[in-house]
């Protein structure tokens, strides 16, 4: 499995393939459709990530110092962004996540991930992942 940096590089390559912004987002919408089915029972407040309007649920579990993530959103594009975030952080060791420089995410060029506009909830999701990895517990 690719490490965090390699995962980001892979996604970057995929996104850079599109010259047209809308084509890129069509791709992100498709990623959302491919997101692993989320257990509806987990769509509860406990797993809700603080965002402004669209809702993001994130269920982190830790086993043998590895972080396992599942997540979803009620918004279609955000669901695609959740897919990207899981691609980067799922099944990574806590140590690797702790050492990760969050600024590297800006290389993806996705405004919804890098802009602190409190809108999509994706930022809250990343914050939560970092927090969980630092605390070593959920």
């Amino acid at each position, binding site marked *: 499995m690719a490490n965090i940096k390699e995962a980001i590089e892979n996604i970057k390559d995929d996104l850079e393939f599109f010259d047209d912004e809308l084509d890129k987002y069509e791709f992100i919408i498709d990623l959302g459709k491919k997101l692993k089915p989320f257990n509806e029972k987990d769509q509860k407040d406990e797993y809700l990530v603080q965002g402004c*309007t669209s809702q993001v649920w994130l269920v982190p579990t830790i086993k043998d110092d590895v972080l396992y993530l599942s997540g979803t959103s009620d918004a279609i594009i955000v669901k695609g962004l959740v897919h990207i975030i899981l691609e980067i952080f799922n099944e990574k060791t806590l140590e690797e996540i702790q050492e990760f420089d969050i600024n590297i995410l800006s290389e993806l060029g996705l405004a919804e991930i890098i802009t602190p506009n409190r*809108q999509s909830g994706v930022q809250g999701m990343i914050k939560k992942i970092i927090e969980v990895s630092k605390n070593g517990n959920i």
Partner: protein
Amino acid sequence: MSYKKFFPYFKNSDMTYLDSGATTQKLQTVIDSELEYYSHYCANTHRSNFGDANKATINYEESRKYLQKFINAKDSSEIIFTKGVTESINFIASSFAKNFKTVIISSLEHHSNIVPWHMQGRSLGDGLEVVGYKDNFAFDYEEFEKILVKNPNSFVSVTHISNAFGTINDIKKICEIAHKYDSYVLIDGAQSLVHKKIDIQDINCDFFAISGHKTFAPTGVGAIYIKQELLEKIDPYQTGGATIKTVTYNESVLLDSPYKFEAGTQNIAGVIGFKKALEFIDSIGYEEIELREYKLYEYLQNELKKIEEVVFYNTTKDSISNKSFNVEGLIHDDVGILLDKQKIAIRVGHHCAMPIMDHLQIKGTIRVSLAFYNDFDDIDKFIIALKRAIKMLKD
């Protein structure tokens, strides 16, 4: 005639700007006047006496007089500059209004006219009353009067135009009713000065909160109008430099209004720039502005109606410029992202008006907010982009 040429943003940005309810674009004359102040006579006002300082003070005070005449206030002492509507409301809330047993607001307030009252420990039925609405978000005047019968001597704080839905309240009528019950009225004019002629004496409100940045002026400048008779009764909510006649270690003697209310160095460039924005509105006239905006607003509504999935919350009747809607089966955030990618600037979300969104059982809306510099072409571009976004999200 295209008015975009007066706003440099439209030359420099390829966005179709339909978010004027959040902030309007700035006039070249406004920007030039700020630049001129900073590069030619930057000095503090009301303190130093050298040439540039005097020029800055004179221009600052000219803006006050201009705004006074612009809204037909009786005297320039009734105009106090603030950093915007939020500060204007917080000022009155934390000084004059804090001692009132009951504060009455409407259902369509934005957070700036809700949160300050909560901060005073008020909650619904306990120091805070909310007037409901009738069809099409019309202010419920009968309910308002009933609340006042039970709670005379209240403080009423109501928006003129709803930021989320564009609903126009009859503020003259609200003032008439409130005054019958010895109550005072603050009108939140954040969304109105840019669209409608304000005649303070005709409205007969006690306070009127004004936004500069939503009226083509710089951010960080606004004003509060306070009726002359009340100026003596109101304490400043902050004090400091340039507010005093004399200070000893025992006491401070404050100046008269407006100076006692304008503590510290003000947004001098912003206030001076504000006058340029008002001059521009005067040069066009509200008649032309309202007519143009009405045509655009009707056109927007009609074009949106052609898209069957669009869900409306009100008609264009008794409303102006701010159109909120949703697309059936879609979350507004998704639509907002795809409109942005197509260079359309609109706002999605709760528009800082969460209680009304809760009441409608929605998380938010897609809001198009127009100003008179927009044109039919802007709306056409938006509609094309919206249709494409819907197709992408529904396919």
